[in-house]
């Protein structure tokens, strides 16, 4: 196929039109103008191509050349991704900084991965082996946390003719030669490419049955997400979307975390860059940056690259999934991505649907969230990998009925509704337990029963039930005051208060409370719910409610979360014992 060579005939913001592009294909990556701005063809009519340009178009002129690259908009895959900071089209921001200083300017030829750096390659296969796509040729220790598995590229299979011996190689050196079926040989390097808009293939989808443990109680216990699941966090500004996303990026037990800062604040990205190298992964004790990739396209960077950043992120996620890892992708915020779609759509003069968003918004959202899941990967060893996507949504004015929130709800199974009122009363994480839901509870119950305790579901449901009962009682209390309620119902209000403060509220800045392991979560919840039952019995036996609220153990319940570290759970047994004792003492006074 000949490459297309055309000229610019129209420029409007991030969108340009070129003629003479009859050799181009849809979604082909092109270089526009003398500065080689990177663009993607988004519409073809005759030899006219409409191009979305991922860099600032200031100064671009008519009749400047447009050259097809012959490939679709793609990302580079290979060792060196982990710990990297990339923009929306995967340009390494550190290298960009070396070239253009602290400000981003137009520049040619920034690649994602270093082609000079040498990596220590360990072959895993021997010559003459019959290989298929996805088989692991060898491994590279990318960081202390991630073993990078070099795979036979998609579409390649045959007999291994040559494999590099153990040693140091750059990503562009040939490390294997495979004789494909028709006798032709294919050289394989560690550097591979994949077009971002096309999902990477897998053998088959599997059922999601393992929770992504995030260490956040309201999430893991009440609204859990599975490895391979999808979740939305909508909330007005100041409700704590970003801090929740960052908590998940920090503490979730994924092997690889991809954090896409899509149209958000620059200072927030620095916060991540500053804190992640210092924070240690709770399970491995290694710096969190050693498993993290950042895609940072802040709000003032080109809007079309913001559109691409989500696809860049999910393609990187698929690549690590294919190695057999559990990947978690955080996208903050998908609303900014949708707005980028809207802006480009407006420039194309497309007919708008709801609130000016293009009518294909829902199908784009669906395409994105459908790239999550648990899969059996390509390759003969049948590895399992997963991608879990957590998308923040920033609804205008905090109104959840707007299109992005509504459509996101359709394609995700977990909904963590952030609430301005809760945030206003400094209840963090401000996840509203009445408006949130998780579609994974039944799928994940087995895991909790096997790994934590077989009464997990009972306790969780009971606690949820208490919270629901409180919600109904709250309206009555507003009208007649709490004194008018019978003690049994006032106990519900008291227990719900304990659940809210002692369990649901979690301080991200507290060194102990910031991460709570599943066993601790379960024990805390069990103590609180048992407290409710015992107190209910004592009340039936005639104890007045104020005797319950005066019990000294309530203070201990409130402090369990930040006074008892995850590795001293036996101290929770002491709290439990004290609680039983308190109740017995109270009961004794009744006789």
């Amino acid at each position, binding site marked *: 196929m000949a490459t297309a060579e055309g000229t610019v005939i129209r420029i409007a913001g991030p969108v340009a039109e070129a003629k003479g592009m009859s050799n181009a294909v849809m979604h082909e990556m092109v270089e526009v103008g003398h500065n080689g701005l990177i663009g993607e063809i988004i519409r073809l009519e005759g030899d006219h191509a409409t191009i979305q340009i991922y860099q600032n*178009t200031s100064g671009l002129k008519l009749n400047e050349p447009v050259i097809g690259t012959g490939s679709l908009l793609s990302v580079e895959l290979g060792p060196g991704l982990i710990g990297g900071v990339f923009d929306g089209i995967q340009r390494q921001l550190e290298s960009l900084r070396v070239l253009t200083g*602290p400000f*981003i300017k137009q520049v040619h030829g920034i690649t994602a991965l270093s082609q000079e750096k040498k990596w220590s390659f360990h072959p895993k296969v021997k010559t003459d082996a019959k290989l298929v796509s996805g088989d692991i040729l060898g491994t590279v220790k990318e960081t202390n946390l991630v073993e990078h598995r070099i795979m036979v590229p998609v579409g390649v299979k045959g007999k291994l003719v040559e494999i590099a011996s153990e040693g140091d190689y750059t990503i562009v050196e040939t490390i294997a030669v495979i004789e494909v079926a028709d006798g032709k040989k294919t050289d394989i390097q560690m550097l591979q490419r994949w077009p971002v808009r096309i999902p990477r293939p897998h053998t088959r989808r599997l059922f999601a049955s393992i929770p992504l443990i995030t260490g956040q109680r309201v999430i893991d216990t009440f609204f859990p997400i599975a490895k391979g699941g999808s979740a939305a966090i909508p909330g007005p500004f100041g409700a704590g979307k970003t801090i929740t996303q960052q908590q998940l990026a920090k503490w979730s037990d994924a092997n690889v975390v991809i954090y896409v800062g899509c149209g958000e604040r620059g200072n927030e990205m620095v916060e991540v860059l500053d804190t992640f190298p210092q924070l240690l992964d709770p399970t491995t004790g290694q710096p969190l940056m050693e498993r993290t990739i950042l895609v*940072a396209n802040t709000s*003032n960077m080109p809007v079309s690259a913001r559109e691409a950043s989500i696809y860049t992120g999910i393609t990187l996620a698929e690549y690590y999934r294919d190695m057999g890892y559990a990947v978690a992708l955080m996208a903050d915020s998908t609303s*900014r991505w949708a*707005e980028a779609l*809207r802006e480009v759509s407006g420039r194309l003069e497309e007919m708008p649907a709801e609130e000016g968003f293009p009518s294909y918004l829902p199908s784009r959202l669906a395409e994105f969230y459908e790239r999550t899941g648990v899969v059996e990967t390509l390759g003969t060893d049948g590895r399992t990998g997963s991608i879990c996507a957590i998308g923040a949504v920033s609804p205008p004015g905090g109104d959840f009925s707007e299109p992005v929130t509504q459509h996101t709800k359709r394609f995700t199974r977990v909904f963590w509704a952030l609430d301005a009122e809760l945030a206003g009363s400094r209840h963090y994480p401000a996840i509203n337990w009445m408006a949130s839901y998780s579609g994974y509870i039944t799928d994940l119950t087995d895991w909790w029963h096997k790994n934590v305790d077989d009464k997990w579901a009972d306790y969780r449901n009971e606690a949820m039930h208490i919270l629901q009962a409180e919600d109904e009682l709250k309206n009555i209390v507003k009208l007649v005051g709490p004194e008018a309620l019978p003690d049994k119902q006032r106990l519900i209000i008291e227990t719900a208060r304990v659940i809210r403060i002692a369990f649901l509220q979690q301080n991200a800045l507290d060194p102990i409370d910031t991460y709570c392991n599943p066993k601790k979560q379960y024990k805390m919840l069990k103590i609180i719910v048992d407290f409710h039952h015992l107190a209910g019995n004592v009340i039936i036996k005639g104890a007045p409610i104020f005797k319950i609220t005066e019990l000294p153990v309530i203070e201990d319940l409130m402090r369990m979360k930040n006074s008892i570290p995850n590795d001293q759970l036996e101290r929770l047994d002491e709290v439990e014992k004290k609680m039983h004792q308190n109740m017995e003492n109270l009961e004794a006074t009744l006789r």
Partner: protein
Amino acid sequence: MSGPSLEYRGVLSINGPIIMVENVSNVGYDELVSVKTPTGEKRLGKVIQVSQNVVTVQVFEGTTNLSPSETRTRFLGHSLEVPVSTEMLGRIMNSYGEPIDGHPRFFTEEKRDVNGYPINPTAREYPKDFIQTGLSAIDGLASLVRGQKLPVFSGPGLSHNELAAQIVRQAQIRNATEPFNIVFIAMGIKHDDADFFRKSFEETGAIKNVAMFLNLADDPPVERIITPRAGLTLAEYLAYEKDSHVLVIMTDITNYCEALREISSSMEEVPSRKGYPGYMYSDLASLYERAGRIVGKKGSITQMPILTMPNDDITHPIPDLTGYITEGQIVLSRNLEKQGIYPPINIITSLSRLMKDGIGKNNTREDHANIASQLYSAYAQYNNVKSLVAIIGEEGLGTHDKEYLRFGERFEKALIKQGRNENRTIEQTLDIAWNALSDLPEEELTAIKPEYIQKYLHKTDAEAI
């Protein structure tokens, strides 16, 4: 790009601020255009769309007096550049950085692209140094940090102008030797407001440290889009070339957004919420994200944009989109203003996201964080009690609630309220806070470490009000 540019005579159409020019060659997107009216007056514009036959130009000063046949255009080959100079401090400029205070021209040290360039996220440094505004409600409870963007959400008729002027007069940095300058950007403000600011800065001598960019309410809306960019371009020059800490005050963002909407609709763009253009978020971000610090540079840019919420509605697109970009907000309350409390800052809805890293031992004082969270929760409690008073009357309150009532009143009158010329140090603010908290029993002060209670409570009683 090379050679003298051609002058084109006649335009195809004129519509609002937009003109279309036919048969032009070698024109770049975003390029600056000089437009000559039939009477010989020169105006500026920029290219907003180029196509094979027609170039679309937005004329900054408006299209009044232009005629299709006699208008002359010249394409200047670069995008809009504005002068920057340290001599702009103490001066008043228009949207293009030209002096309008009647004094002689200053020496232009450099000309820079008014749009600037986005800061590479990896080149940013996290903001963590305190700026003292001398206003207790801000310093104590929603502290401003160098490199932060902290907007003021006000309402029509509230005292945000006084507040802005007071911050300009009083703001100072601590523990730093670098100069501290202020860039004051007024967009679409009324003549009397402009006079108020000018007088206020001149009388106190603050003007020598202030570069003021002035765009008045009756100036063409298109110019309003340039004013903040010209000011921010100077701020970047001062911060990153001259090692200054620059505080940029932009008022009123609402006027800016109205101009944006007006231009967008004259270009027949598809509107989004309330008729504002879909790209308003990105556009505002291109202003706000110019705040920050850069690794290896001594200076910093801190922004305080001021906006009046239409109908006091915080969910209106202007405050809403602003709140999504900025790092917190300071919200003014009509209720407090009516009670005669100046500045009428509602601390419950106000928030500074970067405060946690900008206060404490090395920045302000060790007890600051504790005090702030205690004040916050006690004041929230006071508000609960007050709504109770509305139902059952003050007589019905328990002693506990009465203590909170007393605290809250003292808090509003002694801490929030202050004189228009009263400049408090952060230590004074914290001492006043301790004083107000002394109305509460000691066991209520759960957010404060016991050692601080020991050290600071009652210490200041002698100077009590």
